[in-house]
């Protein structure tokens, strides 16, 4: 008896939900790229958008100090009503989300003294809100999405054909078969990249669980379950044994990267890196093929400081080679400097 044939399950994606979350930031500069990026034939693509009513820049310590005069990088800067209205209008006009909301952050503000833990918890709150918007729509319309993608407003994914090639690469994939596919018996898989096989700042962390949270795919119910578990790590609005102090000490994850992988591990959600992509198609992680010319999909946070005049060009008009060169020669260096 063929072990593979008996256990095979075929990935079939018809409905795709793009769940957008977090702060809008450079969203204006990214939206044409993102809209173009998520165009694909033979699938239905819907957006679900939740946006925060403040701005922060946790990873930009130098920028905060020099440009904003801020030394406490946990400090959130509330947006005025005009700005919130503008951002909301942009999101609704360009992405035409099936559901949209401005995420109210009053529960965050009373927990700001939690410092490190609240930072990561805030990301969880944004993910949770966006994915639950999708679930509300599913309940109201008696449909389910076969693929859910987490996407930030200020992030583009390179190369520009990554979505289409990964999608078509996994479409029809026989999960559970031994060769050339993903060896798991559960087709409800999540895809994301590693930050690193080990954390370079921490010796002895080889195989430490971590994932790049800037671009995450969840097939079937995987991201739903992920969010139900994530609820365990979000501040409660009710009184409980989890006081601020206890919660702070009890927070189990070093950062959002570890959080992503650890929750998958706890929920037994199979995970994989993204396939390599080129204009010719995709190569899945275990496939034996010539990888020459294939690229690893890479999410890039877009900041105005990456350009000398502070003006972000039309990203949708840049070629993949131009974006790659920009990333290699400037973006990565400035990112590491906290600019």
């Amino acid at each position, binding site marked *: 008896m063929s072990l593979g044939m008996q*256990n*095979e*399950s*075929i990935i*079939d994606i018809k409905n795709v939900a793009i769940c957008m979350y977090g702060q809008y930031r450079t969203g204006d500069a990214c939206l044409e790229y993102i809209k173009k990026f998520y165009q694909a034939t033979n699938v239905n693509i819907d957006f679900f958008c939740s946006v925060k009513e403040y701005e922060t820049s946790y990873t930009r310590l130098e920028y905060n100090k020099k440009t904003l005069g801020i030394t406490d990088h946990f400090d959130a800067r509330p947006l005025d009503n005009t700005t919130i209205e503008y951002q909301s209008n942009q999101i609704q006009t360009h992405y035409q989300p099936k559901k949209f909301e401005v995420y109210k952050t009053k*529960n965050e503000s009373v927990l700001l003294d939690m410092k490190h833990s609240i930072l990561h918890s805030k990301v969880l*709150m944004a993910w*949770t*809100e966006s994915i*639950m918007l999708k*679930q*509300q729509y599913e*309940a109201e319309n008696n449909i*389910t999405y*076969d693929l859910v993608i987490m996407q930030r407003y200020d992030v583009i994914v390179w190369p520009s054909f990554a979505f289409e090639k990964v999608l078509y690469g996994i479409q029809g994939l026989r999960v559970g078969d031994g060769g050339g596919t993903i060896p798991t018996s559960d*087709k*409800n898989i999540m895809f994301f990249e590693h930050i690193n096989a080990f954390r370079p700042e921490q010796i002895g962390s080889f195989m430490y669980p971590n994932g790049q949270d800037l671009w995450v795919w969840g*097939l*079937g*119910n995987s991201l*739903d*379950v992920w969010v*139900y*578990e994530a*609820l*365990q*790590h*979000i*501040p*409660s*609005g*009710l*009184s*409980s*044994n*989890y006081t601020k102090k206890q919660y702070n000490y009890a927070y189990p994850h070093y950062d959002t990267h570890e959080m992503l992988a650890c929750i998958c591990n*706890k*929920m*037994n959600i199979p995970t994989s890196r993204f396939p390599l992509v080129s204009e010719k198609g995709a190569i899945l992680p275990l496939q034996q093929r010539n990888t020459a010319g294939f690229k690893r999909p890479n999410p890039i946070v877009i900041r105005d400081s990456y350009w000398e005049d502070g003006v972000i060009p039309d990203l949708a008009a840049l070629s993949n080679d131009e974006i790659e060169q920009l990333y290699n020669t400037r973006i990565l260096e400035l990112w590491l400097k906290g600019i």
Partner: protein
Amino acid sequence: MLIQNQSHILISLASDIIEPHPIRNDWEVFQRPVVTSDKWPQYNYTFEGEPKPNLYDTYKTHWLNGIDMWKKYGQHALAQNDTTVLVNDVDFFFSPLIDLYHDSPPNTVVFERLWRSSRYSGYSLPAHTPHPVPDTFVTSYSNFMKIVSLWKWIDSHSNTPELLSEDNAWLLILRTTWKYNLIYTSTKWKEGPEV
């Protein structure tokens, strides 16, 4: 042991029967009739001779109740283990389950009944694998949604239904608790149904 301090209790009922004299009327009830999908007949089951609604349909109904809970209360009221959900088809005397739940670790699901495994389930008796009876349980909102969303997991195989053709409701609920690392216990233990 961490003792939970529950401050919010919600009830999910999957039935169109409205109790004229509810057992507890100070906990908010989310109720709707069981959806009828006519899908996945392998998840029909009986217990103690009584036919139960299809587990796929029952849990989809509870999931819809759970979405209604979210729409009303939002994430911070439902976060961590501070909201307890009581699950059954109709109104029920939940107090013994709640008491046990409050004395249990946060990751626990308290089912109303467990039964020991038998040939029926495909597991050997020496394993004494306790099988939850899936109709009635008490747990946190987080764990409630993990369990009842298994209808979506089933639906993810709609293009390969033969994969689940040998499956049944008992194995499904057991696998689900294992997969999501849930502890489960009960106030009542019984021998399994006769084959």
